[in-house]
């Protein structure tokens, strides 16, 4: 099995006729994703890679019964696209664009909570469920393989690094989720861990965290009752204090958000925290034995 995204998911691509949208539609189709339609206002009626294009999500959903959407439109239009998807019945929404204003992200995430929509991102590489041959995102296809490990990460390339090292070590993945690198995103470590907890095929979980925020500290509370082993790598050990977080973060965090704080909380909760990304695979091998 997998979490959130399965082979049953019927996916549309908002902004499919742009460069990025077109390229990644091809990549997703190649991976096996059920891409049932695309949306590009004013370009309805065309076909891209055998996929029909619609002017609106409304028409796309009416015709294709899509329940998931991946958004590639430029950041200033992303809020509009997200609301269009959510108000028309999309229940899994992957927001690729970076540089979406925080106020827009707050509006999207708040509405998603009210409607029960799962938002991945913004500023994410997406989500991939290797055992289900499906992905919604911009991650390279070849670095994943099916297996028992659930991966949840805050940042993209670092998660590729780690997923690929898992794959090379023979440790496949149920689902890899990129929460997104923006200050306000749809998921938390907690929400994704809860999903992995319910998935019978996920036997170990890898958390790829980093300094700043207190998402890792909050996750620690849940790890205690998870019933599945967790391996965590935290980036930012060498980052100079204050350079990244700034004052706005600091007045909220008040001492949390440091690598030490996160490592302490996770270790106390029973997670195994490794120091370097290349140590993840071995640690996972051990906890799976």
């Amino acid at each position, binding site marked *: 099995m997998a979490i959130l995204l399965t082979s049953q998911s019927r996916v549309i691509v908002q902004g499919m006729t742009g460069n990025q949208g077109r390229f990644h539609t091809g990549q997703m189709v190649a991976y096996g994703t059920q891409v049932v339609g695309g949306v590009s206002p004013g370009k309805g009626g065309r076909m891209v890679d055998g996929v029909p294009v619609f002017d609106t999500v409304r028409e796309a959903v009416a015709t294709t019964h899509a329940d998931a959407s991946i958004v590639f439109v430029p950041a*200033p239009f992303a809020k509009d696209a997200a609301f269009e998807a959510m108000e028309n019945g999309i229940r899994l929404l992957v927001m690729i664009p970076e540089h979406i204003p*925080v*106020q827009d992200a707050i509006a999207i995430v*708040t509405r998603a909570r009210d409607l029960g929509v799962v938002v991945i991102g913004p500023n994410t590489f997406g989500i991939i469920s290797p055992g289900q041959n499906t992905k919604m995102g911009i991650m390279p296809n070849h670095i994943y393989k099916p297996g028992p490990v659930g991966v949840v990460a805050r*940042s993209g390339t670092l998660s590729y690094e780690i997923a*690929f090292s898992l794959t090379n070590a023979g440790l496949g993945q149920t689902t890899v989720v990129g929460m997104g690198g923006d200050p306000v995103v749809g998921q938390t470590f907690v929400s994704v861990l809860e999903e992995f907890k319910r998935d019978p095929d996920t036997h170990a979980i890898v958390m790829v965290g980093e300094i700043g925020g207190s998402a890792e500290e909050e996750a620690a509370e849940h790890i205690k009752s998870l019933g599945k082993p967790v391996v965590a790598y935290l980036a930012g050990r060498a980052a100079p204090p204050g350079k*990244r977080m700034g004052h706005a973060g600091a*007045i909220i965090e008040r001492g949390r958000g440091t690598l030490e704080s996160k490592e302490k909380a996770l270790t106390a909760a029973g997670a195994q925290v490794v120091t370097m990304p290349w140590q993840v695979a071995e640690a996972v091998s051990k906890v799976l034995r």
Partner: protein
Amino acid sequence: MKQYEYLAKQTLASYGIPIPPGKVVDNPDQARKAVEEIGPAALKAQVLVGGRGKAGGIRFASTPSEAAQLAQQMIGMDLKGYTVERLYAEAKLDIDQELYISVTTDRNTKEPLVMASRAGGMEIEDVSDDQIVRRYVDPRVGVEPYFGREMASALGLDGTIFKEFADLVVKLYRIYQEKDAELVEINPLTVVHGHLVAADARLNIDDSALFRHPEIERIEEGSDLERKVHEIGLAYVELDGDIAVMANGAGMAMATLDAIQYFGGKPANFLDAGGGASVEPTAQALGVLVSMHPKVIFVNIFGGITRCDDVARAILQVKQTVGIPVPLVVRLVGTNEAEGVKLLADAGIAAYSEMAEAAEQAVKLAGEGR
């Protein structure tokens, strides 16, 4: 993007929040005239760092000539690494009480957070939790006046200050929302002759939202080098080591610094070349690293959207144009890896596939170069 105090205060004033009389000055003569006009004044260095006061960035002038004298000393001075270019001459306040208030976004709850305290005047990080009133804003509702009254009540304010504070909360939230602020903070929020006055103000704007705020003045922050890389559109922070680093993705860049430190090296910078940068910006970024005269340059790429052959081409372009006079360690895997590795090999550059090995080698070479 941070705003200078005087710009932040102009914004507060435009929302009807009382600020002291003040004037921006950038030479001693203007400072003299300002004090002639507004009377005894604080001369406040307009720099984008906290804790100016302790660092000598705020001085008091009782007379016009004193103002000119102080301005002479202050303009051009170095304040925590920033050169003071202008001062804000602001009427001296007869302060009865100092409060604190701010609005920011809590990334954990994904909601706006209003914080207030009767312990104003010091950094809020140093105020104990029990002296702070925190109220989250439901984005569905926003801040109606009652929200302000509830905060005023929780702070134990009364009378005129109760009403003015409640009203100020509403205005401050409007600024937060309408100006796409990451942070808007008044500290201290002073009581002067029985009324609230914003004695200092911070306003940080969400960079991602600048496109819809042509009315907001653009402020460039950071060193020349940092500004140069920011202009290319990449994230860059200067550090004090000797191994120049480029990686793709913020997490990857952080992990790369971690790896260098792990093997005993010291990174010279943080440079996120982005998730899908093409040849030209990558070459420009690499050019910046060369110009830093590091001991070693370490390029760590896991190609996702970023194509390894593009990275190789960028490296070759810099090598052929400005030249790369220091040892270069390249780690290159992922999309179009074979092509990229071959391009480099043809130019005599070996590429690593393991991050650990590459980082270790970069540290080793830096050690040799020391």
